[in-house]
């Protein structure tokens, strides 16, 4: 045995795994982390961070195009894709090396390789230098998810691509077909539309961003369509043929079959748990029907000492959720009374405009049979939104009718992703709409929209006529 036995073996170096390992290291546990690819996982390397870098550029391009409205004259805007990609890669590698430094600084042993679980206290690691077995007191499965492949829509990396390739493009495809109108698909749809692509979105369900509030989604869809995109809901791809570098795609839509030519087809139809090598069957680890591992509030599976965090432990698939679960798992392994007991799990989608939500929607409240109040405030009535020229969208507050308890907020509009955190805190603290309404919000800021919507709910809006 070359290495010492471990207290914790974290399998997967994404935002769940690396955070778990750092916390475990801080708590004095002998920790190893095994990652076959780059540290930081999907989020840092192929997801959140690189996509937000490119989306930022796309927004800038877009704003410059409309800059004349503000009196700003540009002599035509041109985008150097190579430079943009270079900058994006720098951002990513800076963060990845930061993660590595943090792991090392907390005495975590990093192993570049793939892991298999043999028993609940033994794993096997395969690296460039061979295979070895490591006894460990506990195991954290943080292997994440991988994109679902659709039959007939297999990625080839050229014409049919996934989100990973979509981040590496060095030019905007002339015609982009996005299959799957979820968060990932729509972010790319909005981004490439700004880079000049003619975008078509196909979604199997009856609305984009399934599960989100329909009023919110309408704002995003309207803008997408106003800029020339075609959106087919309740539709699916029936066939795809490739010839001379383009795809001919047949769609089945509620208005009949439609044929589309696309230079790139981005497939983003959901993700499935990555559990190969985790010995799920051998150890009898319980999963749900889709294969997501079931974990308790302490993030432990039904097998003592084996924990599961992040995407692999089920939706919502969010980096920040994975990180928090990683902390909980590490603390529980160290014997601390930690638990995944959050009330609010905020969600942000970087479409145009941005969508962010926390808690439940009106529809979910109705399902629960609880009487709620729903109040809205449009960004178009807000000084700050007008002064930045971003007036689409609104803040919607859902509160319990009997006492004003905030149970959910949906935001569609400028900087929604930053605005939602206040609501997450409010919900964790059990705040009412009055609490938010009575809290002074600085002027002129976008956050005033939340205050106004809360004021409406508590019955005394200033900048809104009562209907």
């Amino acid at each position, binding site marked *: 045995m070359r290495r010492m036995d471990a207290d914790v073996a974290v399998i997967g170096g994404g935002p769940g795994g690396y955070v778990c390992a750092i916390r475990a290291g801080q708590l004095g546990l002998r920790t190893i982390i095994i990652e076959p690819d780059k540290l930081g996982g999907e989020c840092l390397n192929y997801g959140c961070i690189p996509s937000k870098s490119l989306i930022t550029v796309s927004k800038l391009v877009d704003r410059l195009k409309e800059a004349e409205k503000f009196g700003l004259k540009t002599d035509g805007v041109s985008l150097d894709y190579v430079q943009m990609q270079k900058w994006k890669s720098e951002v990513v590698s800076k963060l990845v090396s930061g993660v590595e430094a943090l792991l090392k600084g907390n005495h975590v042993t990093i192993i570049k390789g793939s892991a298999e679980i043999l028993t609940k206290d033994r794993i096997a690691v395969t690296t460039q230098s061979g295979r070895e077995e490591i006894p460990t007191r506990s195991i954290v499965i943080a292997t994440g998810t991988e994109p679902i492949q659709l039959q007939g829509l297999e990625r080839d990396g050229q014409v049919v691509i996934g989100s990973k390739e979509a981040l590496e493009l060095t030019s905007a495809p002339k015609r982009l077909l996005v299959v799957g109108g979820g968060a990932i698909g729509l972010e790319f749809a909005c981004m490439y539309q700004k880079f000049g692509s003619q975008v078509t979105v196909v979604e199997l369900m009856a609305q984009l961003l399934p599960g989100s509030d329909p009023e919110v989604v309408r704002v995003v869809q309207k803008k997408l369509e106003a800029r020339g995109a075609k959106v087919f809901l309740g539709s699916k791809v029936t066939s795809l043929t490739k010839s001379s570098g383009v795809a001919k795609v047949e769609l089945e839509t509620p208005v009949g079959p439609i044929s589309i030519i696309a230079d790139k087809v981005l497939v983003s139809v959901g993700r499935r748990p990555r559990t190969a090598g985790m010995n799920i069957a051998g150890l009898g680890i319980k999963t749900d029907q889709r294969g997501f591992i079931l*974990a308790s509030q302490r993030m*432990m599976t039904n097998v*003592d000492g084996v924990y599961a965090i992040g995407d692999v432990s089920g939706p919502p698939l969010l980096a920040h959720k994975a990180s928090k679960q990683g902390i909980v798992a590490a603390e529980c392994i160290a014997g601390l*009374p*930690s638990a995944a007991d*959050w*009330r609010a799990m905020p969600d942000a989608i970087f479409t145009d405009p941005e969508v962010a939500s926390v808690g439940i929607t009106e529809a979910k409240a109705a399902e629960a049979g609880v009487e709620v109040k729903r109040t809205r405030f449009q960004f178009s009535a807000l000084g700050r939104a007008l002064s930045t020229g971003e007036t689409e969208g609104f803040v919607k507050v859902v509160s319990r009718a009997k006492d004003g308890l905030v149970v959910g907020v949906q935001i569609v509009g400028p900087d929604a992703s930053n605005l939602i955190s206040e609501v997450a805190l409010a919900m*964790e603290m*059990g705040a009412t709409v009055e609490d938010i309404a009575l809290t002074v919000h600085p002027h002129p800021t976008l956050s005033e929209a939340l205050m106004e919507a809360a004021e409406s709910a508590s019955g005394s809006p200033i900048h809104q006529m009562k209907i």
Partner: protein
Amino acid sequence: MTYEFKLPDIGEGVSEGEILKWMVREGEQVNEDQPLVEVMTDKVNVQIPSPRTGTVARISVKEGEIAKVGQTIVVIEEKGGQPAPMPANPQPVPTQSAEPRQMSTIASPFSAVLAAPATRRLARELEVDIATVKGTGPQGRVTDQDVQSAAAGSRVVTKPPEDKPAEQAHRAGGPEELIPLRGLRRTIAERMLKSSLASATVTHVDEADVTELIVLREALKSSAEKRGVKLTFLPLIVKALVPSLKEFPYVNSSMDEQGGNIILKKYYNFGIATDTEQGLIVPVVKDADRKDVFSIAGEIEQLATKSRSGQLGLDDVRGSTFTITNVGSIGGLFATPIINQPEVAILGTARIEKRPVVRDGKVEVRDMMYLSLSFDHRVFDGAYAARFTTSVIETLQDTKKLLSAVL
């Protein structure tokens, strides 16, 4: 087939347990789910059922011995063709595992207890089920303090996580009887523990010659009767204490921990510790400095009656600044009373007894009484407490001082 039964993980943080009692003997037949063994840990006693049907081949850990979690404690020989099938690779069966087997989900915003994240964490740390804590904050919000009180309360009641095994021990005719901690007992339990944890308590003991006090009481008895009150020693002691409390203001104070202040109180409300059938109650005689001894006597009598008939109002029991507990009526030399929070001192008065004492070089028989002052050392020191007690004794022993204090 041989099944080695290992001591399962009984609950959070428990790593070992004492084998209290084996319910089976070697060679005996045991059925699945039949009570097998009783184990005592530092937290709870649990009865563990047998995970298998078979014959007890060997008991590896005897009664009274300590077994570690994961250690084999009994070997069960399963017969072929038994109804309970055995997996090929037997895992230690977590019969009593505290791990819930459900998916971690976000609590519904409707059903959730109103409490801040840090308060929820505190509850976990103190092993308090926050759902059972009554919130005293706005809109019933559970505060840190509520959790702490609940934790203090539950430390008095040892709450077993598994109800079933405990119930069996407490069943009628069982070796233990279960008295639910309710009402006044629960309040006393919480208050007493809270007080012991809250103050740095020291008890200072001295004795007073109360011969003069007895004379005075005799002298005032008829006047009291005329006013329709019975004059005990208590109202006299209350009045005798007032000058000393004025002279030593820190004894009549409380501590404002949050603000970092000591609050000296310029009013003198006496808590009178009263023994009732349900337990200890401390009604309050307010503004004793501004009332004469007969009024105080009357009030004490009334409060005692109300206490015993359970008719005290909230106003009758709050606002005391200093408490007297008469521990002498039943027996004992002296006691070390627990401070009635948020006060900082309590005086225990013991039984009055004739004892030989030396006066001017001669042994004399005098009426003597022990005084025990429990005080919060955070607020004042032993020397201050001794000076205060000496001052009280001087008042009780000196006819002039006593008269001017009482009348």
